[in-house]
């Protein structure tokens, strides 16, 4: 199994205000799958994503990628883990405001020994002509494309997407989802995507529904719909 999540528990606060956000999550994801995590606010999906991404730690249980357990890792090892395996896409893009578009992508490329060609990637993303602009000169969709470029330029094993279309309009959202699907297909990256949008589950290989820190449904989608055909 490529990604294994075993009995992951996480709580916040102490004493009476203690709140258990993840109550023992077990999940397995195959390499190259698109896995969509669905659930209402407070269901624990973003917390789970952050634990997979090594930017938060589980109170109990472990995450394992290709047999490497994050629970055993110290700060430095976690950094190496993120560097080697992960690409991150956020709802807020989190581009570095004082770097231009090309440089933002190069920030991702720097982390890899064999990154993708930055100019080719920018052309693929439709950003080549904007490469000298700063992030705040671009639309939300273009910024998110840049964030995707930065995430995939190092050809990561897993692409973690936290509400990647949460801040975008309908058309741009579909373009971004199409792009994520293309990246998955072209580079074979495993995609874990957190979303509120129920319609997105149709493009996934695996759909996991969380509620109150517990997985309610974990289904394999046999009949995937192309991202371009999604409707909501």
């Amino acid at each position: 199994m490529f990604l294994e999540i075993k009995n992951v528990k996480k709580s916040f606060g102490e004493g009476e205000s203690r709140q258990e956000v993840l109550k023992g999550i077990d999940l397995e994801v195959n390499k190259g799958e698109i896995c969509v995590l669905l659930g209402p606010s407070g269901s624990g999906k973003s917390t789970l994503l952050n634990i997979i991404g090594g930017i938060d730690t589980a109170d109990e249980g472990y995450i394992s990628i290709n047999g490497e357990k994050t629970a055993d890792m110290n700060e430095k090892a976690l950094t190496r883990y993120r560097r080697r395996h992960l690409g991150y896409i956020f709802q807020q893009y989190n581009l570095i405001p004082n770097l231009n578009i090309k440089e933002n992508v190069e920030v991702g490329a720097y982390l890899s020994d064999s990154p993708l060609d930055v100019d080719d990637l920018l052309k693929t993303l439709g950003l080549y002509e904007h490469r000298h602009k700063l992030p705040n000169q671009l639309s939300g969709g273009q910024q998110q494309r840049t964030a995707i470029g930065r995430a995939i330029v190092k050809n990561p094993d897993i692409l973690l997407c936290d509400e990647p279309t949460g801040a975008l309009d309908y058309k741009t959202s579909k373009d971004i989802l199409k792009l994520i699907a293309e990246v998955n297909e072209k580079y074979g990256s495993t995609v874990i995507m957190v979303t509120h949008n129920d319609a997105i589950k149709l493009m996934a290989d695996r759909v996991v529904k969380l509620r109150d820190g517990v997985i309610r449904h974990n289904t394999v989608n046999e009949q995937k719909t192309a991202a371009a055909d999604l409707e909501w």
Partner: protein
Amino acid sequence: MRDPIAKRIPREIKSDIGKQLVIFLFFVLIISAASGYFIAGDSLINSYNESFEKYNVEDGNFELFEKADDAAVKDIEKDGGITLYENFYKQEDTKGFESKLRIFGERDEINRVCLLSGDMPSADDEIAIDRLYAKNHDLKKGSRIKLDGKQLTVSGMVAFSDYSTLYENASDLMFDNDKFGVGVMTDDGFENLRDSHLHYVYSWKYDKKPADDAKAKEASEQLVKDISKHAVLTDFIPAYTNQAIRFAGDDMTDDMAGMQAFIYITIVILAFITAITTDNTMIEESGVIGTLRASGYTRGELLRHYLAVPLITLTAAAIVGNVIGYTVMEKYMAMAYLGSYSLTSYEVRFNPDALIKTTIVPFAIMFVINLVTIWNKLRFSPLNFLRRDLSRRKKKKSFRLNTKMPIMTRFRLRIIFQNLPNYITIIAGSFLANFILMFGMIFKPMLLSFQDTISDNMLCSYIYIMKAPAETSSDSAEKGYLTNLETTYEQYKHEQVSIYGIEKDSRYVNIPHDGSGVYLSTAYRDKYDLDEGGSITLKEKFTDKEYTFKISGFYDYPATIAVFMDAETFEETFDEDSRLQIYLSNKELTDIDDKLIASRISETDLTKTSRQLMRSMSSIMNVFMVFGIIMFVIVVYLLAKIIIERNARSISMTKILGYTEREISGLYVHSTTFVAVLSIICTIPLANKILETVFKKIFMDYSGYFAYIVPVSTLIATCIIGIVSYLAVSLLLNAKVRRVDLAEALKNVE
């Protein structure tokens, strides 16, 4: 209803207590030092100014070759419109410690003496001596000193109103309160001392005081002529040129202006730091500001809110600083002056001007700089704030950087350009701090270096200046001539130039004897930027007779402003009356009658400037060094911290992407390292050049020459101290970067 957002202010201060405390303490440090300085300086200057009337300080003095008879005195008084007072003194070398003591009889009419402790002399074997001179030689009431073979008892400590600065001679570059002192005895006690070193000095007071220095100059020029008609003048010192009377007052006044400029520059830099801090806070809180503005809060209300913290910090610091200034610092600051000058007693007085300079003006500077910054930010619309869209340059493309440069280099450059105002303030702040540090650092090595240069380039160990021709059997002695002339530069004060006539085949001064021209000391050349082949015009001190000499070359003699010529030319140029016989010698001459020796110049005399400066300035230089380091650390830390805080989200994101701590520090701290280290390295030669110019300018107003020689090792040491200070800052900055939470990037932007 009270403005509800005002409730945030104490919480805001509390939440960032570290930074606020640093700024507060730095303000306190500056304000208390400045306040203490202004209060002490003002009180001392006030008492100094009052001393002229209180102690009836002379309008000038002159020395005659012999005592003037009553008729001559009356004629001089009548011609000059002055009243004369005998102010004779006898000068003796002390036994037991090396110094000269100038002794006066009772001074009831002119230049009265201020008793500071103990008693005035009442017996013939008692003497009251200058407080500072006594301190330097550990003399107290009851101490015994031996003068002219007589044991005298110190009865008390005094300040001479006409020797507030202990200059032995008007032509001295620097005072020397270690090797030279003044004392007062009873008239009978004074009479009992031998007359061989008696000086016939007369002080005068104008019957109608000249309105200003220009008028005093005119009057004194006329007076020289009037006196010369009736007696042989050997020295003439109007009060306005008398360093012993004027130097302390001028120095304290100049220092006050320097301190004023210093405090204002420092406050401007701190004001920029607080403005940048507030600007950063406003960017962080842009969503809140947008919401408040959209809800109806006016720009003025928000302006007042964001102005409050820096102004409250300054006001609190000003109150604490002024209290410390009046209660503690005043004493330390006064001690700095009382350690150099022999001032009469003074009283601390409330100084509204100090309050204006240390509180009102800094408050105005802070207010204006912060007001402009905050108002400029508040000009954005509520929507701009809600969208965090607070850049006026957004429509422009980013400037290009060569893509052949590694991405990390470009990243660092972008950080520098993004935070340009911070870095400019860092450069300005570190320049000022390094300038102060360097000022403190160079002083001692510079003086030692100058001292060594003088010692290495002495003409000989002793120069004896004779009152009348005398012979010696010493094989070390070599005869020569000396006369003193004055420079004639319009733009500078006229100063004494020693003209030496050198015997052929001299063992001590090797100059050609071809009569082609004169050789100037290197001190003369360097002070007035003179070139070989040029000429100099000098004049006699008490007449208008001028001499022009061709400069044939320069002689390596950094100690004094001197001209060397062969003895034959000297004899042709100067008549016998103006020639003084001298002996150059490497050994002391013991077989010449003391009465025939006018003075003896040794290494001690030539190096007294540097020794005095070292004695009076060393402790204050250490303060400069420490202050420079503190200022550098604070400026760099506060501004670099803002850069990290402003980029917290990007730092967090790079962490998430998998950048290591080292790589992230490499981006966000090394950019600051680059700027800070570069500014240290650039500051040092620049500060060195500026200090050289400043020193040269300062010493143009003094007689003699002081070479600005800073060893390279001192410049390197200054650089190292700056870099080590920065390393301490960078440790804090690295810790700050490490503390940036990974979750920072996950926060939803408001």
